[in-house]
């Protein structure tokens, strides 16, 4: 069974998302901030982490850095609300790999296996998760 950890401070979001993923036969754990997420990763083996960036206690970027340093095998999908496409022509070709705007650390974000924009296209997201889980 593939285990997925959702680190996201919005409870309703977690509820709906875990509902969808459970229905797809994944085992889903939920954490509401970055610190809890890091603790959870220490005790459980997850295949995929769905990570929000804007969170209390510990920001998503820090969690991403930690995960990629300590557990490089875990796939991380970043969920973001404000993307900045790298280049207008590239935007047309690769819609999924988007980079953060503003003061967020763009370089850190490159560590992520995938970045998905809010509001989500559910089908696309499920395909991506399936692809990463299979790899």
């Amino acid at each position, binding site marked *: 069974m593939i285990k997925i950890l959702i680190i996201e401070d*919005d409870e*309703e*979001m977690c509820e*709906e*998302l875990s*509902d*969808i993923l459970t*229905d797809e036969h994944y085992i889903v754990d939920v954490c509401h901030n970055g610190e809890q997420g890091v603790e959870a990763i220490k005790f459980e083996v997850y295949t995929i982490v769905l990570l929000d960036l*804007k969170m209390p206690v510990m920001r998503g970027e820090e969690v991403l850095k930690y995960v990629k340093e300590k557990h490089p095998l875990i796939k991380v999908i970043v*969920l973001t*609300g*404000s993307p*900045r*496409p790298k*280049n*207008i*022509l590239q935007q*047309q070709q690769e819609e999924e790999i988007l980079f953060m*705007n*503003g003061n967020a650390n763009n370089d850190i974000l490159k560590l992520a296996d995938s970045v998905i*924009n*809010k*509001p*989500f296209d*559910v089908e696309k997201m499920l395909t991506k998760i399936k692809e990463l889980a299979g790899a």
Partner: protein
Amino acid sequence: MLIEIILCFSVFFQLAAVFYALRYIKTTRHVFSWILISAALIIMIVRRVIPLYGLIVNSVSYPVIFQEWLGLILSVMMFLGVKGIGRIFIERLENEKKISYLATFPELSPNPICEIDKNGNVTYKNPAALEFDKKGICYPCNLSPEEIKDIYSKKDEDRVSQEKKCGDKWYFQTIQFIPRTGSVRFYNIDITERKKAEEELMRYKNGLENIVREKTEELKKTYKELEDGRRLYDIGMLAATIAHELRNPLGVIKFAVYNIKRKSNDHSLDSQLANIDKKIEESDLIIRNLLTYSRIKTPHYEEVPICEVLKLCICNCQSKYSKYDVQIDIKSNCASGYTIEADSLHINELFSNILDNAYQSFADKKGIIEINIDCDQQKKMVIVIFRDNGTGIDKADLPKIATPFFTTKARGIGLGLAVCKQVVNLHKGEFNIESVKDKGTTVMVLLPIRKKI
């Protein structure tokens, strides 16, 4: 005995007189000294002759004592005379010497000095002034009658000074009135060099002032642009925050809709759920449009294939306004793949906004847009001209169109042209709009080919 004593005294005075006379000869070397000496000798002779004279004339022998007294008196007189006259004479001589020395002051001065009398006649010119006369060079001693009159009007002031231009030279003129004779003296100093330096300084100062004025104007303009830019930037920041905050709940709604659809299996709900989905998409579009304003800040320079970006914008517009029947003609003299240094997102935003406005100006959803791209390497600018035959802009509205939040449309927030202007300003280009109501609008964009610092 008495006779001997008197004789001694008179000899002493005679010798003293001769001594003084010799001294004066030595110091003055003047003929008058010789006269004194001669006088002394004559008196001595006379003194010897007087007894003889008495003897001859009267045959009366004066007493010897009388002769000797007379001799002494004459000797004393001679001594006093020689001494007193000599002193006066030496004093006069010394004065003369002093005066002749003082006279060298104006005489040797390299600056022209002159004096005129009441009638304006020149009474004195020093050699320097005469030199000027000889050479025929202008100098301030040659005064016109008006000038003399003018100078005399200032007579009550003891001393007047003025700067006087003469030919290409400048003189500082000190004017002194001599009340005793009524004459006027002029002392002139050549200050051409100083004047030149002053003029240079003045020119420099004026130049500086001009530069400061220019720079102030420039600063004012830049400040205004900055202010506008700042406003857009603030809007952008606000937009980015709102967008981010709104996307979270939108995401949840979308998941919830997906779950409802999955769990209910009730097809009667489908149209409602589809509507929710559609409105979520619309909300997202609004957010995405708002977000573009947050990107209007310092350009992220890269090589931008300008024609390709323009074509992409046209494609996007055509799919966005699929119900419109618009003919787009492109004329271009640019090689394909021709790039300029710019921010691709900004350029995309710029062209999209201009095309949006053009499309929205077609009241009956029909029209022609002409686009002309001129990549003239020599001008260092790419010129893109968009010409439409839409409704155009009211003359009264033209100055306001680039103001943020100004709009004449029922839908829209009025940032399109503000963003265009800001983008062009950020790239240090030029942005112009000309429009005739009911005839159409022409938008001209000039962008530097290479990044301008």
